[in-house]
């Protein structure tokens, strides 16, 4: 412990790498990563709810396009999707002069679009699975009360499905946080981008990446903690009595 303490003081006092300047880079990176991940997850969830309902529809013209969408976005690497959105759009003639250029000029929005579409696809499948697995008894009970399909969806199926989807969705949030590391390839200075910068500047891969790994670990831990609390509250009715 003594030795570790000494090592740590040593690291803090005479290092050329973790100056106020580079820590500023890491801080900006943290803000960007959190913004990017939070926004894409939020929009992703909003998109995923109607898509998940549609995915379970009996009508083929609703079901099949949604299936194709989730298949494509879950079947290709996020890095490729990001490249296609960021570098691909400029091959549309005249996009630079259109109003869309405001969105596509900076790297943030193309990345947000790619991340949102990706997480929406996974979340759709998670929700769809949960909706499909709703206990028969709950549905029969709702029918016995004379609920319409709409009302049944709103009052019975969706609330129950979201609760059961929570653990799987928590994983998706963590995956998304880690997947966001690819944002740095399109010049976004996220956490990984900041680490790359420090690495390239000081030729110190170990210090640069171990530091950023610790930040990711802290973020992941907070997300896990949050979902643990949520699950405890919302899935209380599924726990064995007295536990």
């Amino acid at each position, binding site marked *: 412990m003594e030795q570790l303490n000494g090592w740590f003081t040593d690291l803090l006092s005479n290092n050329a790498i973790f100056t106020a300047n580079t820590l500023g880079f890491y801080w900006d990176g943290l803000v960007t990563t959190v913004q990017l991940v939070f926004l894409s997850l939020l929009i992703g969830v909003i998109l995923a709810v109607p898509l998940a309902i549609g995915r379970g529809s009996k009508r083929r013209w609703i079901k099949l396009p949604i299936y194709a969408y989730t298949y494509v976005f879950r079947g290709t690497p996020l890095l490729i999707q990001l490249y296609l959105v960021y570098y691909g759009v400029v091959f549309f003639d005249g996009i630079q002069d259109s109003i869309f250029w405001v969105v596509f000029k900076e790297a943030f929005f193309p990345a947000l679009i790619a991340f949102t579409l990706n997480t929406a696809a996974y979340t759709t499948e998670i929700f769809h699975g949960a909706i499909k697995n709703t206990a028969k008894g709950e549905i029969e009970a709702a029918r016995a009360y004379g609920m319409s399909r709409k009302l049944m969806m709103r009052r019975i199926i969706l609330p129950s499905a979201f609760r059961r989807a929570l653990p799987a969705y928590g994983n998706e949030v963590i995956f998304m946080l880690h997947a966001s590391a690819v944002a740095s390839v399109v010049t976004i200075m996220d956490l990984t981008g900041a680490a*790359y910068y420090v690495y390239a*500047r000081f030729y110190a891969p170990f210090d640069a990446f171990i530091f950023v790994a610790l930040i990711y670990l802290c973020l992941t831990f907070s997300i896990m903690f949050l979902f643990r609390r949520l699950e405890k509250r919302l899935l209380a009715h599924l726990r064995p009595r007295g536990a």
Partner: protein
Amino acid sequence: MNKWITSALIAGALVSGQAFSQAMAQESQDAIRLGIDVPYEPFVVRNADGDLEGFEIDLGNELCARANLECSWVEQGWDGIIPGLLARKYDAILSSMAITPERERQVMFSLPYYNTPSVWITARDRDIDISDKDSLKGLSVGVQRGTIRDVYVTQEYGDVLDIHRYGSSQDVVNDLKSGRLDLTFEDFPIANDAIDFRKDDSPYKQLGDSIKTPTSIFGEGAAMAFRQRDKALAAKFDKAICEVYADGTFDELMEKYFDYDLSVRPSEQDCAE
């Protein structure tokens, strides 16, 4: 069994080769072998007849003639080029090797003989003055992450320009063409190939002069490398490099192969006896 034979053969070849080369060196002091990694256009290529040609071949032969040495060329892949020198497969490297502190621990460098410049490039219709820092505020510049050009832009323009760092130089060029970038700061030969900014009808143009200084960032340039103890040999080549620069032979050779300036004129101090 087969392995044993092969390794025995290799060992034999190495021993006899070394003995042979030592004998050669004793026989004639003036025979020098130069190691080079082929091809690296237009510095060195093998032509249709199987002979080596290119800027560095011409330059090397010229330097040898001036130093009164009889030179031959030895081909060597890049990863093994310093070990090959230390193992006496050849007596000097003349292969676009940039001077770095890491390499200086193993070999001794001559004076640098060339250095490729870096250039600012923007769209032809843009009116940007790179020397007026205040006017650059908010403009975006693309560089390849971790390169000397990234370091230069960060150090000199970090407070005014919005720096976008890319993984490869293709990505930089793509985003200059897409209009996401106002500027790029690029290695001259790469820019010359990828952007073609020097024709009159090109949509891009160079801003200001090509940049090779400060050497603390851009390096001193490419130089010949010798074994640490061969000081006399290195001195002969230093003198020859000074001569080709002094009488214009270098410029002639450069103009034959390049249409841009990659000279690094040695200072008078370096060339003093």
